[in-house]
């Protein structure tokens, strides 16, 4: 399938990434190449094959609900671009 500029703009929006016009053009051509390569999968009939999401026989892992210590508030905020001691600060969310 061919990917157009509209598709790139839509995916960029989903990805929360802004692209310049030049970047859009590059991505249109690169992503089209990759997608058409990927479409070789359509040669295979997979109707009876189960999808696989994990490579080993793992199942849900449960543990006892016991309180243990974790990172302190200070440690958790050490890397924050903006914080006020209790909260992470962000630009205005609601107009």
């Amino acid at each position, binding site marked *: 399938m061919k990917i157009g500029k509209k598709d790139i703009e839509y995916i960029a929006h989903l990805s929360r*990434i802004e692209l310049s016009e030049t970047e859009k053009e590059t991505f249109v051509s690169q992503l089209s190449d990759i997608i058409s390569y990927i479409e070789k999968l359509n040669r295979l009939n997979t109707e009876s094959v189960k999808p696989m*999401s994990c490579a*080993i026989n793992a199942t849900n*892992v449960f543990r006892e609900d016991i309180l243990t210590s974790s990172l302190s508030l200070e440690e958790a905020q*050490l890397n924050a671009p903006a914080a006020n001691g209790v909260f992470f600060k962000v630009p205005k*969310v609601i107009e």
Partner: protein
Amino acid sequence: MRLFEYTALQIKEKIISGEILPVDLVKQFIEHIKIIDPHVQAYLNLHEEDALQKAAQIQKRIENAEKVGYLAGVPIAIKDNICTKGLTTTCASKILRNFIPPYDACVVKRLKEEDAIILGKTNLDEFAMGSSTENSGYKITRNPWNLEYVPGGSSGGSAAAVAANLSIMALGSDTGGSVRQPAALCGVVGVKPTYGRVSRFGLIAFGSSLDQIGTFTRDVKDAAVLLQVIAGHDIHDSTSMPVPVPDYLREIDSGVRGLRIGIPKEYFAAGLNEDVHNALKDALRKYEQLGAKVVDISLPHTEYAVAVYYIVANAEASSNLARYDGVRYGYRTSKSNGIVDMYCRTRSEGFGNEVKRRIMLGNYALSSGYYDAYYLKASRVRNLIKGDFDVAFQKVDCIVCPTSPVPGFKIGERAKNPLEMYLSDIYTIPANLAGIPGISLPCGFSKEGLPIGMQILGRHFEEEKLLQIAYAFERETDFHRKKPVLKFSPTQKE
């Protein structure tokens, strides 16, 4: 022999016996790194003071005859996508430029408990996305065997560090070949353990159903030693399995007599470089001489592996990298108009092109209307690829094949064409999709003098057997002993 040329097993003994002082060893490494690394560019950050301090502590404990760990005084380098408490961990991305983890990754904690000495953090393709270490947001690492060539990737810094004697061992991560391929291109031993063998707590996530932490060492026995320390269940990683960890050195000498080695015809097809092909043929002849039986097998869905991988890995990446929003850690744009604009600018300014490309590809494959056609389809084909291995391992004990279709490529040669770069991992990706372990070890040299890697793949959790098969070859050959010639004086510029 200079101190930085020893293996971990050798240096361990000399440190315990008092023949080598940990502080002297670290000093020699730092000195050597300062001469060589301006040309190789393996390290992003060197932790000279911490390393010297730790070495002094260990030295004191040895002098006082106190107990020390299994890796006492052994220098190690860590890929910069593995969290080190108090030491910057950037993933080679601008978006994590100043990120200082408040905790240690499980593997780092275990290394510290065993008294290994962390020399520094190594370069990688941004977020481990790449096969050449050219996608780093900071610098390009060079192949110590020829500085015009890439070291492979994404763990190119770790591989180059071990190859150029800038560390004795190193950790990397392998999502589609990021340990084995650079190990092959740099002429060192690289192990990707079984999915679930090593805890990924503190490994910055890329493709969560594929990622696994792996080892770089100078020889197979050192790989056994390092894997011994990092393997095993961890309560903080629910995908690490509670499977007992054997003593990896105990049976390493047992040889290959009577073992069945599978040769997948799909891995010896068109596109395989002649020198690589010849090196592999010689290696297989060696295995036959050593008493193994070489058996032809087929992994019929191999040609679909790269396509499956670039859907699955990128779908997972698009989700994992959604967390970089400039709120809790990492870079935040300086000017923005509201929160969504802040997210967009932060991510656009913070991520490099390859990362953007993959996030977009992943979001495309997961988006409404395309999920079935791409993600679901890929997940089904993934099962067929795993099925190929299941069938093969009923007939053979391991599979031997090239690690990389070519001995190497030049810096810039594949950077313009992402798809061509993706095909660099054609022989390593299937193991990640199936979750099986793999090892790459040196098995020859190309006409241009670049190292060639042989890959051995095994059943889930059979690392012990892989190490044994690899060691049987290594002890009969000298490829792992050859070193790149790097002669720079302290002031010489490239």
